């Protein structure tokens, strides 16, 4: 049981950290992508 509880604690902490980094990167980067999407669809309009 000790092994599993340590494993899940490490996995959980690691995943939360990686997700936080991805969330910042995607949230900021997607703004540019939204602008590009509107430009592209606006041009066709």
């Amino acid at each position, binding site marked *: *049981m000790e092994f*599993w*509880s340590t494993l*899940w*604690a490490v*996995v*959980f902490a690691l*995943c*939360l950290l*990686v*997700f*936080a980094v*991805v*969330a910042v*990167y*995607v*949230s900021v*980067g*997607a703004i*540019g*992508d*939204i602008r*590009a*999407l*509107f430009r*592209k*669809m*606006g041009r*066709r*309009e």
Partner: protein
Amino acid sequence: MPSLPTNFGTLDWLIVAVYMAATVGVGLYMNRYIRDMGDYIVAGRSLKSRLAVATMIGSELGLVTVMYSAQKGFTGGFAAFHIAVIAGVVTFIVGMTGFIVVPLRRLGVMTIPEFYEKRFSRGVRVFGGLLLAFAGILNMGLFLKAGALFVTGLTGLTDPGSVAVVMTVMLALVIAYTIMGGMVSVVITDYIQFVVLSFGMILTCGMAVYALGWSTIVETVAAVHGESGFNPLLEGSGFGPSYIMWMIFTAGLVSCAVWQTSVMRACAAESVAVVRRLYRWSSIGFLIRFMIPQFLGICALTYFFNMPEFRGFFFDETGSPTADPTMTLQAMPLFLFQVLPTGIIGLVGAGLLAAFMSTHDSYLLCWASVLTHDVVAPATNERLSTRWRLTLSRVFILLIGLFLLVWGLWYDLGQDLWDYMAVSGAIYFTGAFTLLLAGLYWKRASTVGAYLALIAGIGAVAGLGPVNKALGLGMYRSDEIGLAITALALVLMFVGSLVFPNRKDRLDHASWAERAQQEGREGQPDRPKRPDRKEEA
């Protein structure tokens, strides 16, 4: 349901109202960009990597996912984390290999049944489309109920009549902006939801650990579940090896590469390179969308187990979690609104309610599009004009919404929500997986084999709680039935294709694959290196 005090106050109501109004407003505004079915279903295939990742995670991290994952954490403890790890690892592998999704994107199809017609026949497309829509609509049948339970916990309302009214209003709002804005509105609202929920949930995890203490959480899980609360390989844990196999298939492969709502994101991507990157980046989202809610479910278990006055609602006399799925579903929202302070509750609540709307809009759009694009249009020899297709999709969205309202209030769950969803989805995906696998990678797959595999998939309905009881199959768990049906579909595809091969006048695999590659090049750019760097810049 227990009547617990909640920290949800006027400020929180205000935050929720402003957030909801803004989300709906943005969705309605997007109507100006809709010109044809391509814009409506796959946003003109204009999504770049980061927006595609945000919308993929935003759509999949819905309120219902949060609710059923929290329930799994409550009933299974830390052992439920294996579902999250499997989902993340398999999605990453799909991103690395391009398994299924890359060939589909190269073909330029908008839906999976459209692939059926290119590879097999128009009849397979119509039949597969009907099955897909049926299973998909059944699968989302309890979304409203889960949402209603969440709202009950959020606001402290105990009158079931009030909850039904609130959910009807929510559904009406979702239907309004999905009907108007299609995929473009879905993408933008998914992005807003991604931002709010991602940071809101990370913050919530931190506050939950701060309030309860990590060691208390671990000790409580050990006291309630014993070793089975940590080790998913133990048979007595409610999981075990066959369940893990079932999860590799459902939570892993199917949810990212076979389930239509995910495949739609791949089809909406700008290029094959974007598809691969989308899956690699989304893998952490696919993992976290299970893991964080499961952890919050574990925190709810800890909180209520250590509160003697409320323990009776959630645990039986032996200290095990109650067998009533409604109570285990409600535990997480009730816990959240005890622990989080005013203001933060409003933000998290608004984010989760937006998640509820976002999942609904994606799914409504998806199943309505399948019915229009893959059932009605082929059945009328593609004579429907764009205007009629859009109108028909909007009518289907309305009808599906009405069905959800009735089904959500009527159906008696009788099992964990996640298991209900896996089984109802299996009616479609056991057959669909076989058709995709054989159709894309086995040159002798035939139309008869495809029909047989789709028909075999219908057998998965035996895994639903009430059907399982009615058929006297109680000795078999839903995961065992699902795996058996998947194996049966594969065998029938193999045998049917060998015994009834396609006629010579149909395209053989070599020429079909060549055409697929060609269509990919002609349809959209498929140049993995230079455009990637350009896009990143």
